């Protein structure tokens, strides 16, 4: 009984959360100009949310999360080019394809230690990249998938040049999937995942079916990543090989780490900071951006994520007082 009460208390909506979502949706009505980058932020946020499910809650480090992102992007792109132009249908197909691949690859990922997981996740992404590169008649190879004509959303809202519809579409998808993720992590299932992350042996001794839980959350995260990829493909009407590249997996890891893993909003906050920084810093030269990212990662790891977060929390309470 107590546990159920505790769960309910943790799952309560806070006013800051509501304010955030109201502001995010209000941004749709802003004058045109910022929607393109807002759309990118929403997509990266969804991608980071998906990584948060496996890293922040289940403790699986992935070096190749772009595998599912890219798969979703290609699935949505091909769907749109050859079958149906309704975006929602493409989104559903992309999520199904990524989720299924996540389910299959989870059987490999869950074998062995952290080290094996690093290799397998990286390897799955590389294999998919190779496949996409080796099938130019379908994927366009290095030229990218061109000639997508994305139909209007729900048959009514056409995608405009300024990205207003795109942002609304991505944000709505992010919001719906976020609600689902929120429901999942505050359920007994989510609690059992956190138990597994803290101590796998003890969790299994308490009767948690460790492997089944990890497979389930890995497939769920893959589905989410596929959705993010599909959003990118549909809102830009283009898919290139870089959706599967290592840099994308590293980007999302960094975005999530900036925002903090394990509290759902980490991905969203991180995506916001990451995209704004990237926009500001990479305007001069791409090498500089890579350099800054590297420096940031090193400082972050050396100082320690916990200490950094404690510092931020300290600053917040100081600001409130």
């Amino acid at each position, binding site marked *: 009984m107590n546990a159920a009460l505790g769960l309910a208390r943790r799952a309560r909506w806070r006013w800051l959360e509501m304010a955030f979502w109201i502001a995010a949706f209000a941004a749709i009505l802003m004058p045109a100009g910022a929607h393109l980058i807002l759309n990118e932020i929403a997509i990266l946020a969804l991608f980071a949310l998906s990584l948060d499910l496996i*890293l922040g809650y289940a403790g699986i*480090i992935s*070096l190749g999360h772009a595998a599912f992102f890219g798969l979703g992007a290609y699935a949505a792109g091909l769907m749109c080019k050859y079958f149906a132009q309704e975006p929602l249908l493409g989104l559903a197909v992309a999520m199904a394809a990524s989720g299924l691949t996540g389910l299959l690859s989870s059987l*490999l990922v869950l*074998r*062995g*230690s*952290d*080290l*094996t997981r*690093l*290799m*397998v996740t*990286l*390897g799955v992404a*590389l*294999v998919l990249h*190779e496949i996409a590169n*080796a099938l130019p008649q379908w994927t366009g190879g290095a030229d990218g998938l061109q000639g997508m004509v994305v139909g209007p959303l729900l048959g009514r809202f056409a995608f405009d040049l300024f990205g207003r519809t795109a942002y609304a579409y991505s944000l709505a998808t992010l919001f719906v999937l976020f609600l689902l993720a929120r429901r999942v992590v505050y359920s007994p299932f989510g609690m059992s995942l956190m138990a597994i992350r803290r101590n796998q042996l003890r969790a299994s001794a308490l009767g948690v079916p460790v492997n089944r839980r990890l497979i389930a959350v890995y497939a769920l995260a893959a589905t989410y990543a596929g959705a993010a990829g599909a959003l990118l493909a549909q809102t830009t009407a283009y898919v290139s090989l870089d959706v599967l590249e*290592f840099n994308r997996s*590293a980007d999302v*890891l*960094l975005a999530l*780490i900036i925002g903090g893993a394990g509290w759902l909003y980490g991905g969203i906050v991180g995506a916001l900071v990451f995209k704004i920084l990237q926009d500001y810093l990479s305007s001069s030269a791409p*090498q*500089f951006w*890579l*350099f800054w*990212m*590297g*420096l*940031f*990662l*090193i400082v*972050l*790891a*050396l100082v*320690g*994520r916990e200490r950094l977060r404690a510092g931020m929390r300290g600053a917040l309470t100081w600001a409130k007082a």
Partner: protein
Amino acid sequence: MATILFDGVAYGMLLFVLACGLAVTLGLMNFVNLAHGAFAMAGGYVTVLLMDNWDAPFLACLPVAFALPAAIGLLLERTLYRHMYGRSHLDQVLFSIGMVFIAVAATDYFLGSSQRNIHLPDWLRGRGQVMGVSVGLYRAFIIVLCGALAFGLQAGLMKTRFGSRLRASVDDARVARGLGIPVGMVFAATFAVGSGLAGLGGALGTELLGIDPYFPLKFMIYFLIVVTVGGTSGITGPFVASLLLGVADVMGKYYLSSALGGFVIYVVVIVVLVLRPSGLFARAR
């Protein structure tokens, strides 16, 4: 057939020298260093620059390609890596990816992004006949040199005083420290040697693999595979794994199309992981 096998063995030997430093830091010391390839890249670029700008002979470049990455490795170990040993794997991953990015960005900025090659001396070019099999001289050179290194390393780890100190430090750092073994210095020296060997591998591999600023990212998966498939018990496992991968990769690319052949090593890895989740040679305890 025998020639393909020979090429595969040469490639595998090269992989071993590139990855054996990682086999020790990652496999034995349990430190995830994804930046290992950056040291290999340093060795490769040292060779390219020395040969292009000073017309240095190839053989004279090799010791420099070992010494410079080893020195960089020692410096970084003492200043940065040292603080990361006891940390979580996620922190180590973030830290070493950061190192890779900085290495890539710096190389790209200072040396340009195009691929660089070296001109081998005449006596290493061409082919020869060994027992009726036509073999590339350079590949034979790699096999001899890397084979000798592998034996030397195994002997060093198993027979020398330093080797037993290292094994003791890895097994239980606290007890080793209590016995008066300078664990920090042992780790630093090991790290330096591992980085140096990676540099040497990079120098030897420049001819076969080519070198560009993205080398550390491109070969990260190979290093990880060697260590994972080989298991974390010593350097015998990674040695066998390197040979297996080298032969599988070269044969796959020869007998299948070059697009399909790239997948052969992944199939091998999957099979090994399904049959033996903790590698070919798992630690006994």
